[in-house]
């Protein structure tokens, strides 16, 4: 590795090297309520990569994803974006990140369309046309102007996932995106994730099922521990 | 069918016939906020039966299970227990039913043991010894005295599922019992459900994955609809 990230000094504003990982974790450790979930965890993500975090219940998958998204601070180690520590570049990460957690930020009182319009506006506003197309793409045609709280668990998740069909930032971090989806929904999402990676995007996700469709760059990270 | 349940007059206290279904649904219809989820749904469950309710997201699986457990009232039709309408025999159903919904009634502030002790007391109290054994059976040895909110999603579900290992009523109704379980947990639960049916118990459950281990009496009920 040529870039200086590895030896913990912040790289000056030098010319970006093509092989610089977009997102890196270095010697990451995470502790929750006294219990150490993992430590000395390294990972690197370059354009086109797809990373599935696996591990038994309680092994810290969600925690790791939140660290990468900058939602939590690691107990030790650091997360780097394009070679520089995350600390100072919240805004930079924000521009490049699409995060969908367990709860996806869908308001029950708003309709699917209103929800999407606002979530897009947080990054860059999208037109009505694009939003309707995205909703159709996740199989919600006819549910565009129904308040979301009357949708079932799986349908609500589809609303959140419709964001992936709108003009989206390169890095996607998804915590259990497949929960509550039926089989056809799972297959469709797998294909979509693959497509994103092939277009040079990056995906980090957790799920307990093994993906049927994967890009060539697919990797697994196992947080195997004695938990549960 | 000899018993008179079918023609809608309440069977007098005659001698129970072996072929009487334990639980029946007759011409059940369910409506949520204007939308009809299903109608004219009939089903019968005799000792030893296992029924998996399947269907795409939003097809009404959860709603059906809640109707069967007496938690919701059907829009039309009725549920019968041992040939008699559920209306008048809440208590009778309660004695025979073990219900675990999406949320399983686990208090985050109490330990796994305290939680189980109380849930059992609601039906019939269980001894400490039995509870510890049940917790061990679901792989929570060593987590008995930890407040449940510090357990991960999958571990919490295991606490709830430990009830299935304590002396339990014959009819189990389980809504997505496999969510958040890792692979080993899934396999173990499947075997346990099979065992319960072979001992003459009954299981109604929903899940999006197809069971690897099934009793001979296994049936599927598909709520296939155009939803989502």
């Amino acid at each position: 590795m040529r870039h200086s990230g590895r030896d913990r000094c912040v790289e000056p504003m030098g010319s970006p090297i093509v092989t610089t990982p977009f997102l890196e974790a270095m010697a990451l450790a995470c502790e929750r309520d006294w219990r150490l979930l993992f430590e000395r965890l390294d990972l690197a993500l370059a354009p086109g990569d797809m990373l599935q975090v696996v591990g038994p219940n309680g092994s810290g998958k969600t925690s790791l994803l939140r660290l990468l998204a900058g939602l939590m601070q690691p107990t030790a180690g650091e997360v780097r974006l394009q070679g520089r520590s995350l600390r100072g570049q919240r805004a930079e990460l924000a521009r490049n990140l699409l995060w969908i957690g367990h709860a996806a930020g869908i308001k029950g009182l708003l309709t699917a369309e209103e929800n999407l319009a606002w979530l897009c506006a947080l990054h860059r506003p999208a037109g009505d046309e694009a939003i309707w197309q995205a909703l159709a793409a996740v199989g919600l045609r006819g549910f565009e102007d129904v308040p979301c709280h009357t949708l079932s668990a799986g349908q609500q998740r589809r609303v959140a996932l419709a964001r992936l069909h709108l003009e989206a930032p390169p890095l996607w971090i998804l915590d259990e995106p497949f929960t509550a989806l039926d089989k056809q929904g799972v297959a469709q999402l797998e294909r979509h994730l693959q497509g994103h990676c092939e277009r040079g995007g990056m995906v980090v996700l957790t799920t307990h099922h093994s993906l049927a469709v994967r890009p060539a760059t697919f990797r697994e990270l196992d947080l195997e521990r004695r938990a549960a | 069918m000899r018993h008179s349940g079918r023609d809608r007059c309440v069977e007098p206290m005659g001698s129970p016939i072996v072929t009487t279904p334990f639980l029946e649904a007759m011409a059940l219809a369910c409506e949520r906020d204007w939308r009809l989820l299903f109608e004219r749904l009939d089903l019968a469950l005799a000792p030893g039966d296992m029924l998996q309710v399947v269907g795409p997201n939003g097809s009404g699986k959860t709603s059906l299970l809640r109707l069967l457990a007496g938690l919701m009232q059907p829009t039309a039709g009725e549920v019968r227990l041992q040939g008699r309408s559920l209306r008048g025999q809440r208590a009778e159903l309660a004695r025979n039913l073990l219900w675990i919904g999406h949320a399983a009634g686990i208090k985050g502030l109490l330990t796994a043991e305290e939680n189980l002790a109380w849930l059992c007391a609601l039906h019939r109290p269980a001894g400490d010894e039995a509870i510890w054994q049940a917790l061990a059976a679901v792989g929570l040895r060593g987590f008995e005295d930890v407040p449940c909110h510090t357990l991960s999603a999958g571990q919490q579900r295991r606490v709830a599922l430990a009830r299935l290992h304590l002396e339990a009523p014959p009819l189990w109704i389980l809504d997505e019992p496999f969510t958040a379980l890792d692979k080993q947990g899934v396999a173990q639960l499947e075997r346990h459900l099979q065992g319960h049916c072979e001992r003459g118990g009954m299981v109604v459950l929903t899940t999006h994955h197809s069971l690897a281990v099934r009793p001979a009496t296994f049936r599927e009920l598909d709520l296939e609809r155009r939803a989502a």
Partner: protein
Amino acid sequence: MNWTWFHKLGSPKWFYEVSGRWLPWFAVAAALLLGVGLVWGLAFAPPDYQQGNSFRIIYIHVPVAFLAQSCYVLLAVAGLVGLVWRIKLADVALQCAAPIGAWMTFIALVTGAIWGKPTWGTWWVWDARLTSMLILLFLYFGIIALGQAIANRDSAAKACAVLAIVGVVNIPIIKYSVEWWNSLHQPATFTLTEKPAMPVEMWLPMLVMVLGIYCFFAAVLLLRMRLEVLRREARSSWAKSEIKALVGAA
């Protein structure tokens, strides 16, 4: 006892048809009675020997105050019927009547306050009856707010029914305690109860107004209920054809 008529009463289709026939009668009766009562009360009834002409407010104040109180009882009765016999029409009645009752209470309060200024020299005093009327308004608000807050229609109706029943049991207690409260602290400066024995030509128009306002209430209630029933039954065949007919006519 034969209960079929009772359940027939609960059938939305039957209700929709019958209410359609009754509604115009109530509407016409309300318009006539209110018109006659208003003109009579405002122009023909003799002035009060003490209060002069400001007493004419009585012809709107008292009928509306009556209605406001009896409407709450109606809510509780509808709630009980809905809970015990599971008649959905009663649920509809409960939720449709609540806003009307609240408006009537509001009118009673406003007209009372306006009347208070010339007679007592102040808009408001903390008199027992005034205060309990204010509380009644809050009770109505509670039921309306609860009904709106619960998204699911059936649960909303049942929850409102429970609240209305608990509330109506409390109303005598509230009324009693409020009266006691006022009489304990100090003798009320003004009382509404000591009315001069009214001559016939004064209370006859009042009677007309009372009848008129009840007819008005019935008409508006039916109007609201018919819409609500149509909404709830939108998928049944009779409602579909009804809606088609109405839409085609519009």
